[in-house]
């Protein structure tokens, strides 16, 4: 993990990504959250390893290819795990496009694809051909939500709203499962669900009750637009993973751990504090959201 200044990083990305491609990109993840809450974080640097960039519209392979080629031409370097494949299939063998900036290994950007409407699988890989071979762009089913209600930064790049990032993470983990992060965080291989649900709690803590009061309606609109056939069912299950987390002390400890080394680093937020935040989220957001799904 590296401490990075979100504002400076946004500025750098805005300069390095071709201007004509800005409108096809949305910053998501910890960098987007750190930028949005930079006031509350008192401009502390964010502990993150990567800047996730979602390329849209869905299926827009060309923009992704143009962006990757341009960055490589500007001197960005593939990470050690990023190398081409001679063929487009099988997609399971394709590597994601991850690039370091020139002369720095502090962080990397990863290009993600906006999922198409109707994607039912949690993860799909879209082949992308660069000059040296085939790569893959992962598209996570619920990442589609991050394109809704985007915010525009002063630097000109768009980024996902905390409400949508929280919703996407909640829906991605209706249960805790067993998958662990391949990359360690401060020496620990954290449960994937704990990391993502911990992110939800960090976003809720930073947003505060007043901002969260608008989340149920924002969620309803985004779900209805993104998943017209299944949004009611999704509304009802949106909190199930979080409830499992609260029932599992070990998973909750891991979730808390990721926040202390990530977004909430240095803010002395305890595990008990996060539990109370979860209760607030349940009362103020999850229950109204589930009711909203039932009543319409």
């Amino acid at each position, binding site marked *: 993990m590296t401490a990075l200044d979100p504002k400076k990083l946004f500025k750098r990305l805005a300069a390095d990504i071709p201007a004509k491609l800005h409108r096809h990109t949305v910053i998501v993840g910890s960098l987007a959250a750190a930028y949005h809450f930079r006031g509350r974080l008192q401009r502390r640097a964010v502990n993150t390893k990567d800047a996730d960039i979602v390329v849209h519209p869905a299926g827009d392979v060309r923009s992704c290819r143009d962006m990757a080629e341009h960055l490589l031409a500007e001197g960005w370097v593939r990470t050690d795990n990023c190398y081409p494949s001679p063929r487009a299939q099988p997609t399971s063998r394709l590597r994601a496009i991850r690039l370091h900036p020139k002369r720095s290994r502090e962080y990397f950007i990863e290009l993600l694809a906006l999922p198409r409407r109707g994607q039912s699988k949690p993860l799909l890989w879209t082949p992308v051909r660069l000059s040296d071979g085939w790569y893959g762009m992962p598209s996570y089913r619920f990442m589609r939500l991050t394109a809704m209600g985007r915010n525009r930064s002063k630097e000109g790049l768009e980024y996902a709203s905390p409400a949508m990032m929280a919703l996407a993470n909640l829906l991605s983990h209706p249960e805790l499962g067993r998958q662990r992060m391949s990359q360690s965080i401060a020496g620990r291989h954290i449960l994937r669900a704990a990391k993502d649900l911990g992110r939800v709690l960090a976003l809720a*803590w930073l947003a*505060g*009750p*007043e901002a969260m*009061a608008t989340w149920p309606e924002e969620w309803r609109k985004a779900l209805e637009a993104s998943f017209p056939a299944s949004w009611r069912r999704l509304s009802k299950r949106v909190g199930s993973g979080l409830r499992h987390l609260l029932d599992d002390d070990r998973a909750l400890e891991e979730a808390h751990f990721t926040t202390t080394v990530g977004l909430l680093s240095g*803010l*002395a*937020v*305890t595990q*008990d*504090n996060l539990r*109370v*935040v979860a*209760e*607030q989220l349940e*009362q*103020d957001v999850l229950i109204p959201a589930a009711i909203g799904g039932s009543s319409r």
Partner: protein
Amino acid sequence: MAREIEGRVAAALRDFVSAPEGAPYDLENPDGKRVIELKTGLQGVRDLDAAVLGLSKVLADQRGIHQAYLVVDLPRVTDDRLRAEWDSLHRVVRPDVMRRLTLIAVGRESPWVSRDEPVARRIATVADAVLRPARLVRVEERSAPQPSRRFFEVFKLLLNGWLLRSGPVSTRYLMERTGFSYPTIADALRRLRQSGEIEGGRKRSVVLRAFPRQTWSELLVLSRSIRGTQLFADGTGRRPDPVDLLRRLRKAKPYGLALGGIVAARHWDPRFDLNGLPRLDVCVSRDDQALLRVGLVPAKGPSTSPVLASHLVERADPLFVPDPKGALPYADPVETLLDLHELRLVDQADQLIERLRARHTR
């Protein structure tokens, strides 16, 4: 009790008699040139200052009084503190007034007098002798049959009526509003008669004679335990935000909860003089804290800043006043005053009493 003490001091001094009804002091000598004011039940130097300033005004208005003796019962204030306070008052009150004012403090190892002269020493000796057993009686009454929570509920109802000038009330009224039995009501009224704080009205109704300082002082001391006050902190670890908590409570509208403290004070007095909201106070009519628990945890230790204080109102009728705008109701004026005292907003509390009485003048 106060009249009894006054009578015994007058009898012991012989050259002082009870002052006429409505006089701003208790005792005077026949030519009216010397007067005595007896102040028992003071809590501290703040009350002392108020008593001195009150008597100073009398001396400023009535030049015929050559010497006024203010007798106070302040066992917890040291002689050094008394001396310092007395000296500081000299900087505030005109010299010609202070020259005619003598402070006598009893209820200590030996009485303290601000001016060592024969009359002052004699008054000090007599007052100390009279008040010492009276204090013991009060202590005994407290340690044996201490005023109960129910007594104070009856008292609060009467005080509420006095503040709002709603007139004498019947025993039946008190039984219905409190939910207590006749013997409980009768005991409470008997206690208030003994302290001289209530008087009878028509058809066996009762009303407070004046602002009931003695019982009010007792209630202030016991307030936290009587009201079952519980303090809550923001359990999320975020900075306390009472304004946001108020917004959430108004949106949630939990049953059996009314807004007290500064929010209620602003309702009762639109000119209430305080900016901001340091803490939210609520009254709850049942001991069900679940409605408060989302986001709140019991405040632990003096270093934790409570964002909310909840107080239990154990009466059949909690006297919650509906908000015309339909949000949460407000607590009654007495609960509001108790909250203000707990917040150390004593001046604002005194002002609220004056304004309530002025607004409800018939």
